């Protein structure tokens, strides 16, 4: 049931209302020099706890936003840090490759390795240099560490590289000091030995000590002399007292490569490249 306004609002209510209206009008007409101190006084007394509450809420809100930003930055930094060793490694390889390029001076084509996700990628891969850059089949492919393989086929823009891990790979090799010679080939086609090389055809009476650096001999007309192949790590076997086979740890694993250099035919195979590779490129 509605209450009548005349019964509800008393005279005191009306007077109070009119008083408030009057005060409001007075407040509106106050000059600035009076208005500002009043407003300031209210802010510093009655409103102070509420403004402090609002300030704390703002701070909390800003802190939450800041926290989210910090977490995002930390996550980005953590993600970047996971790639840091890889980036350093790649940077080091590129620097050494640049050093090799300076020492080779001419007769090479730089190329980028176009890695594929297949597990057979380390056996043969595609590089971003082809016929138009002077790449020919059977060109030697090297990195700053040593021999990578040879070009098996060439397109206009790309080439296919057969790495030392491929079962068909062979290279004529000698010890770095020239004491022994033999043929280097992949050690096996299965198991952990697939990533090792073996030096075959070493006469039985010639001992090769562990740590001996094996380089290309320059024979056969494919690889120039002096490209590091790997380091002898032990004896793989003997054949009827005639010869020994030695295990050779390769100078570089194909999957670790990002860039290579392809030695062009203009350089020929008669040159000795031992001086072009760093002494520590094949680590014992």
């Amino acid at each position, binding site marked *: *049931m*509605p*209450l*009548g*306004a005349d019964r*509800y*609002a*008393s005279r*005191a*209510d*009306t*007077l*109070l*209302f009119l008083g*408030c*209206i009057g*005060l*409001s*009008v*007075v*407040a*509106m*007409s*106050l000059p600035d020099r009076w*208005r*500002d101190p*009043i*407003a*300031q006084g*209210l*802010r510093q007394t*009655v*409103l102070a706890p*509420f*403004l402090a*509450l*609002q300030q704390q*809420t*703002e701070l909390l*809100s800003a802190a939450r936003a800041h926290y989210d930003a910090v977490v995002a930055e930390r996550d980005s930094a953590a993600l970047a840090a996971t790639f840091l060793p890889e980036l350093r490694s790649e940077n080091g390889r590129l620097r050494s490759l640049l050093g090799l390029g300076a020492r080779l001076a001419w007769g090479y084509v730089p190329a980028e390795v176009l890695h594929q996700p297949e597990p057979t990628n380390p056996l043969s891969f595609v590089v971003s240099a082809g016929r138009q850059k002077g790449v020919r089949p059977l060109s030697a492919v090297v990195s700053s560490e040593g021999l990578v393989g040879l070009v098996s086929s060439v397109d206009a823009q790309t080439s296919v590289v057969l790495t030392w891990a491929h079962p068909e790979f062979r290279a004529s090799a000698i010890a770095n000091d020239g004491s022994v010679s033999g043929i280097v080939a992949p050690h096996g086609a299965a198991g952990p030995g697939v990533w090792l090389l073996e030096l075959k055809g070493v006469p039985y009476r010639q001992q090769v000590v562990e740590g001996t650096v094996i380089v290309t001999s320059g024979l056969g007309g494919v690889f120039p002399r002096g490209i590091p192949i790997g380091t002898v790590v032990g004896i793989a076997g003997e054949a009827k007292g005639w010869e020994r086979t030695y295990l050779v740890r390769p100078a570089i694993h194909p999957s670790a490569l990002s860039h290579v250099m392809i030695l062009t035919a203009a350089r020929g195979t008669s040159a000795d490249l031992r001086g072009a590779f760093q002494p520590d490129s094949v680590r014992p």
Partner: protein
Amino acid sequence: MRRTDRYRYWLVLIGLVVLHFTVRERLGGDRVAPDFLLLALLIYTIRAQPGRSAAAGFVIGLLRDALTPASFGAGALAHTLVGYLSSWAKAVFFAENVFVNGCLFFAGTWLRNLIVLLASGRLGGAQLGWELLVWSPMQSVTTAAVGIVVLWLFGRWVAFRRAEA
């Protein structure tokens, strides 16, 4: 009125004041977010008589003017009028209906904005039209929505008891 109801009633009002200074900033822009202070005043007017409502409106308006000195006094005038009219309207219509209460909150918010805009004389022309026809209705809607939720949750605590107020 039970003593506990009186405490709960004031707790609801204090809660609205606290919400005004804490969560309002996160509920959208200044011109759209619900006005919890005005809502507290309008809920207060449900129980209080017009004179007290006008006085409460004057105090709230003056405090708000201290935070927006550019329109000093206009807020006090607007809240005084809204408080008095709301209390008077509740007496006339005396409806315990959610829709009617929502309309009261909507109209109170819009009327407050109208009076503040006209009394302060800060805006004019298209700006005034935009404020009154676009932003004020939006703020009125959000304020009314929050008011309906408050009444739905705590309706028993703030129920109309004119004789006991």
